């Protein structure tokens, strides 16, 4: 009966996998479009929701927090910093930066383990 649970002792966050998932989501949604103020709302929501659905489909016992920032390219500076208080052996984060001619997109994924 124990074998069906994922072994919590060996669980680490696979950042590469998350990176690939998020990158695919972004490219699918923002790949061929230019910045459009009316649609940005919809884009960010879709990116985040799709990334989240794919991450959950991995089937690991993790809580996920996905943050997406889409910014028009205007020569402005943007700084982000994050600090986390968690268990470094099981929890992790992944950041994906993507840009095209007219906009920048930054997606942060935080994964926090759930101990069953």
């Amino acid at each position: 009966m124990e074998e069906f649970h994922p072994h919590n002792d060996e669980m680490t966050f696979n950042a590469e996998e998350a990176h690939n998932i998020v990158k695919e989501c972004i490219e699918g949604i923002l790949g061929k479009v230019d910045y459009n103020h009316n649609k940005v709302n919809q884009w960010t929501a879709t990116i985040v929701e799709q990334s989240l659905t794919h991450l959950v489909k991995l089937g690991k016992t993790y809580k996920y927090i996905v943050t997406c920032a889409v910014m028009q390219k205007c020569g402005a500076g943007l700084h982000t910093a994050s600090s986390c208080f968690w268990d470094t052996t099981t929890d992790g984060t992944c950041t994906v930066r993507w840009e095209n001619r007219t906009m920048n997109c930054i997606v942060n994924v935080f994964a926090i383990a759930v101990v069953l």
Partner: protein
Amino acid sequence: HRLQGNDTILKCQKTFNNQIPKHNSKLYFFFCFKKYTQIVKDRMRSSSHEVHGTEPMDDESFAEFGKSEIFTLRTSMAKIRYANTYKMEPYRKFQAHLVRNKAQHILTQRLQETKYNGATSSFLCNSISEEILTAVKDMGFDRYKYVVTVLILQKTGQAIKISSRWVWDVARDNWVSAKCETESFVSLALIMACYYE
């Protein structure tokens, strides 16, 4: 030599049947012994792989063991295991309004007078996020993990959209955001608290 878990249980049952009287204590002893055999079984799993030339195991669960499994067993042996407290809630639950006030205070205190500067902003961003993290930790909500994100954005007439979604425990996890705006920049702080046991 190796010890099969099931054999041990049977042997123990036999020995105990001889010695103890027929009460509930028999069940109690059996229960304790089953736990013991489980521990012994785990230990035997790891040690049996260190010996070369053992015959193939009959038990199915043993057959799946490879190098990674031994490593995880070893680490699990080393990791501290806490007994169940049977506590489902934290003593002090995350109080959003307190954290929001505190975060807002930190932001305005540190950023109200400053001007946006490309060189120093990254350092400022880092230090603010650490300051907010320490402040939230000091508030003493137990059994919580935190993620603090701070954004500083220069104002040049561009638009930005920030959105977040999460998969978490709606009853116990919570989030707070604080904003500070000046002439040259906007800053946003997001604090997310996740319950864990």
